[in-house]
């Protein structure tokens, strides 16, 4: 669906009204996953492997079952084996079958009449393990002789002769690398590592499952995608989709981590077995151990540059590990690595290796921050060594409309050059730096996504409007959707209520991911509003006795299209709605689509840091985010995404990491030792929104949710490396690591 017209005057889109869910959230009224209750509800709890890798020899649940108040116990054998690899992986990640594949892997679950009884029941389950050698490091996992996490999982395109832990492989690029590197005046090759990080959402996973005796089930859960939860759970439990209704709760953060299931099938199985509603709420420890962090990575990047700053060739080898199951995130990293550049010769290779870690889940722009960190670090070092301005070099090589991208497609309208120009013009770029301070810069990129979307828009008889959409709101999307409906219909924002519906209320909606909601659901809402407008115009036409084509919609009212159409006073939405029972019944607009045309999004981050040369501590002094939003529907929430991405990136760059001991167990499953930034660690994150309209959306909207986490790793690494006078190549750049680098 094309951009309406390049220079549209918006009345409501672009304003900053309060979000509709705000009052409930700040008054504690909002219902999150753990807030759901049902009469007769049982507490579900999960027993988890204390071993990184172990064969499950036997599980004896008899003592647990004998405890008064224990109503059901399930283990892997209670779940039907899946034919499909993808479903089997999801299922076995929720409940191990033959092997426990990581510390925290679920091996059994109970439902009991109280949390204390559930806890006692877990203690009473006897699991005999045969402990196997384990591997948690991606480089170690591909060495000959490494313990094999799962055998026979390599896809066909993985070259023969590699470790059996290598499951996925990919290659992207174009041009003649040798010729490209030959043209360079300087070639730099470096290796990088990044630790796995967690999304760090504040709300732990929680759900309530209720199976009825006639085989129907209801599931309330905290998720980014109720429809996908239904798909996965109905397959895993072996029931028809129509018999399972999934209702999403309010969500206390997701960032991609709530796009799959962990406890939901378990709660359903326990409910089915016990005949009672079962609630499971994860502890923080479980969230860290057994949900999906990012991949960990090890990467080699080689880039050639001429003396005047032209990139002649670039090559990247990305070795990712998405934990104990095959993972395609390396594809996205390999595609994103050089996306910001217009390069003649570029090649990226991606690999995934199995390790004894939890199964990776999406985390904003999955795979891109790592790859771009490596590429942008080398670009920065080339600029340093060649004495070139890093921003000028980015501008010189920036991808633009018509560039054959490093991952295949040719770019349409993109905002990278404009974003770089905005950074160049900003006072931050030329502000003076003090001793031990450094400034870092990085570009970032994300594809963005459209996908299956279905929206209903109901015109109420009092002239207000209800919008029913199917995507959990993780960033203020209900406000943006209401704004777009208000804009289109010409009625006040306050007269619209947008809700996120259960799986029975709408056709399939893809998960809230890929930065798709404001773009896709917004598009479908605009179209649904236009559908409703067409129906209202028809009512007016009939009332006036003129052709439908002779009616226009202006400022929330039907009006005759011109002097020839007749002279009638406008009929407002409220008036048409009030008489709708007499003029043909309720009026509603609908739109169903698999949206294409999600415009890619580029961002540029600029950061100043100071490194304490005696302790290696980094202080982030100033941070500015520049990003193309296409059209910022609700600028507060666009800025929120930009700031949030920068903050999560600061954590990832400086302190956050999954730390495994020699025993393969996670050492920091809590917010004390898994260090996300606290408010006092951060400067105010300044934001500059650019609006280069996306040709694929009526208002020009691009997704903005993921791009902001892509540049910070590199921007901060570049700033720290410049401040410290030594190139850092491993994340997180924790103080001990920086101090070690400083001491050489």
């Amino acid at each position: 669906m094309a951009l309406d017209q390049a220079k549209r005057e918006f009345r409501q889109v672009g304003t900053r009204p309060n979000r509709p869910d705000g009052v409930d959230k700040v008054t504690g009224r909002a219902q999150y996953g753990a807030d759901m209750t049902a009469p007769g509800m049982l507490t579900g709890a999960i027993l988890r492997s204390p071993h990184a890798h172990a064969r499950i020899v036997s599980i004896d649940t008899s003592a647990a079952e004998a405890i008064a108040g224990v109503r059901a116990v399930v283990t892997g054998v209670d779940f039907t084996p899946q034919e499909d690899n993808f479903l089997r992986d999801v299922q076995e990640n929720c409940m191990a079958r033959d092997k426990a594949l990581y510390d925290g892997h679920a091996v059994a679950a109970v439902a009991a009449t109280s949390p204390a009884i559930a806890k006692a029941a877990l203690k009473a389950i006897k699991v005999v393990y045969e402990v196997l050698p384990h591997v948690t490091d991606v480089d170690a996992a591909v060495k000959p002789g490494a313990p094999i996490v799962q055998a026979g999982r390599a896809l066909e395109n993985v070259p023969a002769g590699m470790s059996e832990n290598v499951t996925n492989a990919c290659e992207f690029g174009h041009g003649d690398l040798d010729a490209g590197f030959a043209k360079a005046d300087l070639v730099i090759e470096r290796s990088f590592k990044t630790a796995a990080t967690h999304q760090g959402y504040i709300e732990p996973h929680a759900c309530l499952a209720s199976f009825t005796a006639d085989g129907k089930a209801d599931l309330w859960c905290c998720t980014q995608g109720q429809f996908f939860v239904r798909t996965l759970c109905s397959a895993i439990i072996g029931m028809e989709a129509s018999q399972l209704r999934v209702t999403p709760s309010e969500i206390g953060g997701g960032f991609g981590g709530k796009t799959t299931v962990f406890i939901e099938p378990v709660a359903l199985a326990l409910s089915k077995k016990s005949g009672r509603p079962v609630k499971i709420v994860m502890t923080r420890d479980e969230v860290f151990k057994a949900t999906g962090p990012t991949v960990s990575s090890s990467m080699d990047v080689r880039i050639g540059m001429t003396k005047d700053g032209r990139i002649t060739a670039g090559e990247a080898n990305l070795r990712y590990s998405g934990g104990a199951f095959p993972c395609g995130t390396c594809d996205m990293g390999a595609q994103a690595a050089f996306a910001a550049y217009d390069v003649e010769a570029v090649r990226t290779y991606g690999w995934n290796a199995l390790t004894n870690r939890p199964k990776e889940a999406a985390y904003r722009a999955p795979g891109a921050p790592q790859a771009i960190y490596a590429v942008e670090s080398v670009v920065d070092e080339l600029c340093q060594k060649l004495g070139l301005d890093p921003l000028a070099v980015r501008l010189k090589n920036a991808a633009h409309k018509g560039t054959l991208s490093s991952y295949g497609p040719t770019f349409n309208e993109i905002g990278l050059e404009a974003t770089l120009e905005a950074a160049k013009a900003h006072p931050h770029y030329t502000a003076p730096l003090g001793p031990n301070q450094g400034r870092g810069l990085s570009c970032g990129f994300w594809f963005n996504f459209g996908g299956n979307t279905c929206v209903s828009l109901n015109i109420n008889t009092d002239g207000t409007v209800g919008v029913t959409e199917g995507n959990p709101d993780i960033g203020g999307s209900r406000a943006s959707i209401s704004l777009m409906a208000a804009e289109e219909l010409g009625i006040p924002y306050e007269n619209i209520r947008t809700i996120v519906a259960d799986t029975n209320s709408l056709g399939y909606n893809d998960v809230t991911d890929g930065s798709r909601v404001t773009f896709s659901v917004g598009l479908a809402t605009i179209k649904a509003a236009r559908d409703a407008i067409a129906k209202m115009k028809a009512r007016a036409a009939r009332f006036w006795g003129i052709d439908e084509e002779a009616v226009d919609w202006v400022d929330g009212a039907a009006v005759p299209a011109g002097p020839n159409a007749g002279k009638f006073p406008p009929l407002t939405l409220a008036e048409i709605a009030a008489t709708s029972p007499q003029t043909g019944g309720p009026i509603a607009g609908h739109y169903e689509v698999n949206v294409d045309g999600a415009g890619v999004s580029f961002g540029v981050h600029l950061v100043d840091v100071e490194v304490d040369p005696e302790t290696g501590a980094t202080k982030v002094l100033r941070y500015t985010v520049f990003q193309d939003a296409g059209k910022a529907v609700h600028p507060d929430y666009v800025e929120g995404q930009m700031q949030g991405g920068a903050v999560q990136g600061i954590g990832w760059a400086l302190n956050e990491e999954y730390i495994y001991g020699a025993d393969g167990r996670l050492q920091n499953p809590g917010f004390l030792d898994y260090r996300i930034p606290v408010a006092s660690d951060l400067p105010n994150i300044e934001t500059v929104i650019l609006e280069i309209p996306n040709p694929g959306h009526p208002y020009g909207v691009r997704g903005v949710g993921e791009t902001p986490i892509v540049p910070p790793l590199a921007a901060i690494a570049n700033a720290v490396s410049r401040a410290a006078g030594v190139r850092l190549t491993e994340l997180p750049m924790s103080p001990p690591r920086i101090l070690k680098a400083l001491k050489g």
Partner: protein
Amino acid sequence: MRYMTAQSASAAAMALAEEPGKSRVLAGGTDLLVQMKAGNLTVDLVVDIKHIPGIRDIVPEAGGFRIGAAVANAELREHAGVCQQWPGVIEAAGLIGSTQVQGRSTIAGNLCNGSPAADSVPALVAADAVVRVAGPDGTHDVPVLDIPAGPGKTTLNKAQIVTSILLPARPARSGDAYLRFIPRTEMDIAVASAAVNLTLDATGTVTAARVALGAVAPKVVLVEAAAKAIIGTKLEDAALSALAQACEAACNPIDDKRGTIAFRTSTAGVLARRAAKIAYDRAQGSANAGASK
């Protein structure tokens, strides 16, 4: 689990002595309740000491201050007298947790919890504070340095409770300071820490000093060689280097997820050097403040 509110120190000590199972004293609970909730500790008896008369008071004594064992850190920080006399102890106590944790937590609890990384402990050791301990066989005073025994351990027996901590009187031209290193700016556990307490003569020469380190050994370390390195000096560069070296030599840290041995060791030296300078400036400031009175 039984929960008891003690009305006197001796009642608390009796109850603790008589409990055959596991018992714990409850002050602010910011360690105890966290440990219990995490499932790391199951206890049979919890004795809340907050209702013992006088245990929440700060009382001037012999030129110093006696701080009740249940005085919350937030209250301690608002006590003008203690703030003026022992700014280093106050800044250490003030680092514990967040605003919410400050409202509950106590320095006595920080000490009795036995963490090698406890923030107030090095400052109390540098201050040479004296701990009043009550037990079934009466009350006695113990130097603070003698309380910690190793990670999670103290020299107190199961029936003993700390009722107060005395910060002693101090000479003119004295100052103290505490610094810790954490990877973030708040809500973290010290990776290394240092407290310095010193006294100057009229010429600005250090005449007495105590230097204590936290988080670099199984328990707090009083580094006498570090004190010697600065006594008789005006904290010239050489003296500060000697101080840092003595501190590094006194370190016996572990390598763990929070920091490496090398990092903890070198950081302890850096912090001691920086804390000494702050303490020195405070001592000079206190002399000037005294002079203007």
